[in-house]
């Protein structure tokens, strides 16, 4: 499963109450919540690669 697909699968597991909590930092110290990260990924922005890489390094995206 590619990282984008892993992200969407993981995102589905995140409780609604926690989706606005910071989960990743990108660029020049820009914190993003799960929801904000999803917006970037939905729109295939230039932040996507870094977001997915960092989430993977943190062990938050699991291979099936």
């Amino acid at each position, binding site marked *: 499963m590619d990282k984008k697909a892993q992200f969407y699968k*993981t995102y589905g*597991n*995140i*409780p609604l109450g*926690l989706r606005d*909590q*910071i*989960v*990743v*930092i990108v660029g020049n*110290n820009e*914190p993003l919540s799960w929801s904000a990260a999803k917006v970037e990924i939905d729109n295939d922005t230039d932040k996507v690669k870094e977001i997915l890489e*960092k989430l993977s*390094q*943190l*062990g*938050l*995206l*699991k291979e099936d």
Partner: protein
Amino acid sequence: MDNFEELRDEGLQDYIKELVVARINALSKELEISVGGENITREEILKSVMEGNELGREVIEMQLKFLRDISEGKIYQSG
């Protein structure tokens, strides 16, 4: 407690500290925190995280476990 191998990678260690700092900084200001019967300020927690002392390491490990358990759906399992 999980074995966080990532914490042995110095670069990733610094990144994780930044992330934990950002998460602690975002906590509601209406909340007061105490640990073991003593008050602790956000600044003290952040200092511990950046210094990597015993409390700081515990906070980092627990934050990682929290994020992972949530992302893996483990929090929905009972027992």
